[in-house]
């Protein structure tokens, strides 16, 4: 048995059956990190000492018969999740020496469920990017092709799980930052409904769009993690009071007769022919499983990227205003290129004389985009689309042209604007490079998304193909 190839659920079972200890599990991943990280650069920090200590404690508890959903399971955390006593940088030199004095709610919940912090993963600085290339701590490489990007901004998290350096990793998704790297690294990426998981203690990017998710090898793993992280939090007023279910319970429930919409606007110009064909194959798989497929229209889709790139930098400029180097972190001279570009763009669209023409207009079109979804979900249960218009692209291919880079998010930003959940699931390979499909559903329909994704995954098992 190769421990590094286990899914989270299998690792949990192995611990429960005492096939291996938590210490052995942690050791196996630390060893893999030592071997692969110098090349892939998925981790900014590895918490070796703490992880060993926690693993020993977990083994004691397991011996005593204590049961917790993630007891003894090592997890990697994107470096914008505040971890008490562990340096948290958001991959920016501004926070190069910042040591949080409290845990993010998601970190607290995962730790309380028994999870062990394995390390902090690399990312686009401040989560600004679609490729992982804006990190101040070096580019992360795609485990499926080292001259390719892993997708961003949760670049390190996706690459760590995709390469077997971690069982699972957390991520944040403001415009596709979990789903896109999921697609590029052959892992499952979940963006929950806005407010399903608390944003407290996670370095804010664009507060009306930020969703807290994770990257895992399988759909069941993703469901298990959401059951732990979801729920109302008194420290984040935007978290929903609606109850959290056992997301694993209904995975196997039949999907026959469910209706999936195919939004035609997601299959037009700009979509790579190879990707399009693969997504069509996936649609056929669903048909074979008895799902009804129907073409639908989301007419305001073509405005979504413009709306997103007005609202998001506006909120970024406001959220990054707090970094003054007085209370923590270094001064504003440490911001790199992309953060500066977004701060300036946001400052411009919010400035007097331009606010109405840009920001207010975008907030109104946002309403139209949301209404498109409301309407379509009256007819179909979920939507199926590509995650990205292309396969993982080459490192430096898009860095000189910000607008070209922004277009990578064209199929993912809509979910953030409407606040709906989305999941990206491995959908095959072209020339050994992975690609994912995206399933979108109404607010708080995570249960249904997991169910659909699970059936597709069980039938196709693309997740089993590991990088060479």
């Amino acid at each position, binding site marked *: 048995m190769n421990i590094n190839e286990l899914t989270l659920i299998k690792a949990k079972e192995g611990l429960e059956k005492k096939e291996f200890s938590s210490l052995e599990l942690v050791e196996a991943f630390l060893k893999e990190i030592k071997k692969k990280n110098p090349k892939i650069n998925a981790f900014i920090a590895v918490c070796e000492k703490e992880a060993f200590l926690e693993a020993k404690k977990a083994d004691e508890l397991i011996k005593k018969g204590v049961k917790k959903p993630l007891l003894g399971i090592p997890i990697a955390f994107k470096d914008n999740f505040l971890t008490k006593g562990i340096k948290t940088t958001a991959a920016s030199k501004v926070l190069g020496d910042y040591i949080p004095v409290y845990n993010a709610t998601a970190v607290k919940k995962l730790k309380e469920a028994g999870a062990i912090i394995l390390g902090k993963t690399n990312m686009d600085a401040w989560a600004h990017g679609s490729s992982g290339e804006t990190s101040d701590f070096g580019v992360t490489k795609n485990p499926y092709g080292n001259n390719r990007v892993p997708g961003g901004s949760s670049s390190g998290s996706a690459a760590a799980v995709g390469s077997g350096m971690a069982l699972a990793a957390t991520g944040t998704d403001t415009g596709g930052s979990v789903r896109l790297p999921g697609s590029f690294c052959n892992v499952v990426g979940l963006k929950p409904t806005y407010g399903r998981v608390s944003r407290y203690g996670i370095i804010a990017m664009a507060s009306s769009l930020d969703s807290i998710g994770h990257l895992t090898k399988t759909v069941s793993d993703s469901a298990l993690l959401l059951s732990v992280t979801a729920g109302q939090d008194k420290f984040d007023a935007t978290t929903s009071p609606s109850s959290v279910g056992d997301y694993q319970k209904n995975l196997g429930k039949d999907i026959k007769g469910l209706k999936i919409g195919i939004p035609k606007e997601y299959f037009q110009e700009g979509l790579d022919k190879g990707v399009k064909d693969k997504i069509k194959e996936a649609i056929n798989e669903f048909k074979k499983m008895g799902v009804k497929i129907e073409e639908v229209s989301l007419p305001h889709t073509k405005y979504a990227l413009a709306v997103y790139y007005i609202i998001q930098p506006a909120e970024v400029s406001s959220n990054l205003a707090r970094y003054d180097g*007085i209370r923590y972190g270094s001064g504003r001279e440490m911001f790199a290129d992309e953060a500066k570009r977004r701060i300036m763009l946001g400052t411009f669209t919010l400035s007097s004389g331009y606010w109405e023409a840009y920001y207010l207009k975008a907030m109104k079109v946002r309403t139209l985009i949301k209404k498109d979804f409301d309407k379509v979900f009256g007819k179909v249960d979920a939507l199926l689309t590509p995650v990205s218009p292309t396969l993982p692209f080459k490192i430096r291919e898009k860095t000189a042209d910000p607008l070209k880079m922004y277009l990578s998010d064209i199929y993912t930003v809509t979910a953030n604007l409407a606040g709906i959940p989305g999941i990206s699931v491995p959908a095959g390979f072209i020339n050994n490079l992975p690609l994912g499909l995206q399933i979108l559903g109404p607010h708080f329909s995570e249960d249904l998304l997991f169910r659909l994704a699970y059936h597709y995954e069980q039938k196709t098992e693309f997740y089993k193909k590991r990088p060479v």
Partner: protein
Amino acid sequence: MKSSKITKENIKHLADLANLKLNDEELKKFPKQLSEILDYFKSLNQLDIKKVESTAQTTGLENVTREDKPDKSLDSDQALSNAKKKHKDFFITKAVLEK
């Protein structure tokens, strides 16, 4: 939408508003890059949105408040633990008001 041509002077003014210092390379490339991005936003002009309300909150929550009860927070040692400059229980900042 107004003209979206951003000049070097605009960029300097924006950097000043945002308390950012730009290097020569950035001063050179930002006007063009930001102008291109703003041009891309022009597509929104095709829509008639006079009667549309704006959306900021998507899941329908409204007026979320907490009980007005004091709770414990960070103590001053914790709050100051990441400060580069401090004096006793205070952060040191540049002077805000001048004599």
